[in-house]
Every structure is written in structure tokens, then in C-alpha cells.
């Protein structure tokens, strides 16, 4: 049986299998069709119906289940929903267990949430450092702003204030008003 306890391990392994079998196009299709349009329909339904309050319900529940030690912070203001990950439970699992079968695991988040949020009328500003720290700002499509000044939305919980935000050798991926996993600048 395939279990949920080590889900992030075989999920990441599966990305690598898809890339070997069908290239990058197949990996993107998997994130969108299997995860966004099938597995996570409950997220789409909630956010489409309720907007930012729906995001609070969805991520509040799912992240508490995945990260009972609360390696994340959720904050929100009018027209912006923000998550700061100080210790991503998913990326952290892979790093602690030294698992790597796919070139950039972190892309999967934008891979399914990007198309899902686009369909719900939202765009994403986001940065991740590949070491388990990242931040997300989600705004209605067309709303001004993005990449808010450090601390202005999440206060002292802003991931960019962490001493390990940019450790030596870390590579930062940056998204601006994006909905596509390949729409990043390095």
C-alpha cells in the first residue's frame, strides 16, 4: 500500500518518473489535471465560492494537519492573503530524508495552485529559497500591489526576516503576478 505518512517522498519521486516518461509537459499536466482539477477540488470549490475567507478555511485546515508544529503563519488584509513558511513540512520532509528524484520540488506548489487560483480570479506573488522557507501573497487579479515591503503584511513573521532566508548557496525563485509554474525569475 502507498501511505500518506511519507506522501511527500513518493509524490516527489513521481514528478521525476513523469519527467523521464513524458518530459516537462507531462509534469505540468499532472500538477494541473490530477492535483488541481481532481485531488484538490475541495480547495477550488471553497476559494471560488468564498475568496479569501475560503483560503483561510482551506489552508488553515490543511497546513495544520501537515504541520502540527505550525511551521507557517497565515495573515491577511483587505485584498491580500499571505502565507509565510518558516519550516515547510513538505520540503522539510525531503531535506531531512535526503530525497531528490526531481530537479525542483518547490515548483509543484505553483504547478497546482497557480491554475486553481487563476480559475478563481487570483494572482500570486511568491518567493521560495528551496530550503523550506517561502512566502505567498495572493490578490484578486488586477489588484495593484505585490511583493509587499518586508513586514508590512506578516509583521515579524515575514519569512524574509529569517536569518536563514538566504543561506550561502541558496537560490531564490521569484514570481510576480503569476499563475504558471514556469513564470519565474531566478
Amino acid at each position, binding site marked *: *500500500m502507498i*501511505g*500518506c*505518512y511519507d506522501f511527500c517522498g513518493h509524490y516527489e*519521486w513521481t514528478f521525476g*518518473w513523469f519527467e523521464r516518461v513524458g518530459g516537462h509537459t507531462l509534469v505540468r499536466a*499532472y500538477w494541473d489535471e490530477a492535483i488541481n482539477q481532481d*485531488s484538490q477540488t475541495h480547495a477550488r470549490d471553497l476559494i471560488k465560492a468564498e475568496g479569501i475567507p475560503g483560503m483561510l478555511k482551506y489552508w488553515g485546515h490543511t497546513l495544520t494537519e501537515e504541520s502540527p*508544529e505550525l511551521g507557517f503563519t497565515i495573515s491577511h488584509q483587505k485584498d491580500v492573503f499571505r502565507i509565510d513558511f518558516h519550516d515547510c513540512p513538505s520540503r522539510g520532509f525531503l531535506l531531512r530524508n535526503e530525497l531528490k528524484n526531481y530537479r525542483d520540488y518547490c515548483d509543484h506548489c505553483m504547478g497546482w495552485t497557480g491554475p486553481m487560483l487563476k480559475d478563481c480570479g487570483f494572482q500570486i506573488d511568491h518567493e521560495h529559497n528551496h530550503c523550506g522557507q517561502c512566502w505567498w501573497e495572493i490578490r484578486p487579479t488586477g489588484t495593484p500591489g505585490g511583493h509587499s515591503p518586508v513586514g508590512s503584511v506578516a509583521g515579524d513573521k515575514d519569512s524574509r526576516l529569517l536569518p536563514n532566508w538566504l543561506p550561502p548557496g541558496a537560490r531564490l525563485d521569484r514570481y510576480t503576478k503569476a499563475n504558471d509554474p514556469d513564470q519565474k525569475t531566478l
Partner: protein
Amino acid sequence: MATPTSGSLPYTDTKPVGSADFYFAINSTFRFILGRFGRDGWIRYLTDLGTGYYAPVNTQWKQGGLPAVAAYWRAFFAAEPGAVVEVVEHPDRVELSVRECPLIKHLRAHGREPVREFCQHCYHLGSARAGAAGLTMRLSGGDGACVHTYARSATNLPAQDLNQIKENRP
């Protein structure tokens, strides 16, 4: 290293049990592969997963024999939310009596339809893993309750009849 819940699990997390909503993604992954590559492609995926991702488990089983198989499955099901499983070690085999499959239970409780072939994944995956460890695996039942048998290859088990594994119907 992660905080281990048991030395029998090769990959460990800081939390004692997994998040059951990930079962949705496992079912959706199967549906995606079956839709793109058909049944043979899905079996190839499970075989590759069994010999690739699970290679450290297979090595444990090869080195530790049936006691290692039993210890692994006890630790495995202890970390799966909602599992009701009895693991019994016999001299020539280990039997897992799955009384409540956590995957099927969670999918059904949330109105998610398992793919028809869902329960066969345990055979194709388990068989690949057992083969890599010099063991034989058989499965009967399904759709929420089943019996897995891991035996020494020398044990004279009848060939697997896939008709003995229930399909998942709405």
C-alpha cells in the same frame, strides 16, 4: 535526520501520523496515469516505484527476512490514520489482515470514488517490492478489507489470481 517513529520506516517525519487528505492525491495520481498510459503503464509506474522509491525497504526485507517485513508493516500502519490492521508472523510468511483500509475509508467518507483498479495497486506494488527482497507477495479481498501475504519465495503459494482482488465499484 527526522525524528523517527520507528526504526522500521526508512523515511520518517516529525509528526506521528500522516495527513489523510493526501489519499485524495494518491487516487488522483492513479486516475491520471490510467487515463494517459492505460493499465500497463500504471503497472509499470507501480513496479518502478516499488523497486525505486522503496529500495531501502526492500533492502531491509532482504537482510532481515520475514521479521523485518512484519516490523515494517506494523510501523507503517501505525502511521496511517484510521488503519485497522493485524500483522501476524508465521514461520514461512507474514500476513496482514486489513480490516479497515485507511485509504478506501477516507476516500469513501469524503465522496471520492476510488479508481476501479485501486486495490490492485497493493498487489503490483507489493509484488515488485517483495520480488526485490527475494520474497513472494499475494493479495485477496479488497474494497476496504483484504489480506496481504508475504512469503519466502520457496514457499509453495498458488499463483496470484487477479480476480481475487475486488474492483472498486460506485
